């Protein structure tokens, strides 16, 4: 049962990371075309965004210790899984915050083309 909960948490971490990436991908791509311009730079930032999302989501999921006893009740597994989910969502939020700051710096430092 612990293994099932662990795998379910890892799957969810992956779904959250990929879901967020595809949700924001087109907007991020548009902004990067506007500021970076260089196709390789756009690719790099998109790939790094996906990589950081996936890595931190997995890191958060793996950081949860599954130390339940064999006779643990069903709800104890649910709470453990929910704790893992909270950790994954917290990490995803942290990534979005970090990228928000970075994109703000990117726009300010490089200046949007239309302003020139």
């Amino acid at each position, binding site marked *: 049962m612990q293994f099932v909960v662990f795998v379910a948490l890892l799957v969810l971490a992956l779904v959250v990371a990929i879901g967020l990436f595809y949700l924001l991908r087109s907007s991020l791509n548009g902004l990067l075309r506007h500021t970076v311009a260089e196709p390789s*730079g756009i690719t*790099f930032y998109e790939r790094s965004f996906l990589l950081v999302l996936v*890595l931190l989501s*997995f890191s958060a999921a*793996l*950081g949860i*210790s*599954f130390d339940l006893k064999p006779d643990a009740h069903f709800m104890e597994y649910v709470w453990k899984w929910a704790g893992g989910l909270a950790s994954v969502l917290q990490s995803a939020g942290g990534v979005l915050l970090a990228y928000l700051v970075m994109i703000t710096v990117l726009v300010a430092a*490089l200046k949007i083309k239309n302003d020139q």
Partner: protein
Amino acid sequence: MTNERFLIESYFVIAALSLILGWTAYVYLWRPFDDFLSSRATKNLRAILRRLFPFGMILPALLGFLSVSYWSCNQDTYEKIVRDRQYLIQKNQEQVSAALFSIAMATLFWDVVLIVVQKYGHPKAEK
């Protein structure tokens, strides 16, 4: 398999996995990173960053793995550490988690480096 054997084997397997994860992240980002430098950085800067990039992705993975210690308040002797298989598994999880976190931080660092390179890496490109 005894707990001690599990400790030894899992330690080196996780160490190898951490290096592989760092290498995979490096390979995934290498091509756009190199193309970007080719168009936006001077020759010397490009040479330096190309050499630093693999170390800057793989070493953090190893550092993350190494940052996890088996010693704790309750496990302060080797015998106590190897007594509990669940504790060893938990430590392995922590090692992978720390390696993943370190690779993510390294990726963010290189994002910032590219912003700086775009802004200041090739003065002639500004004209």
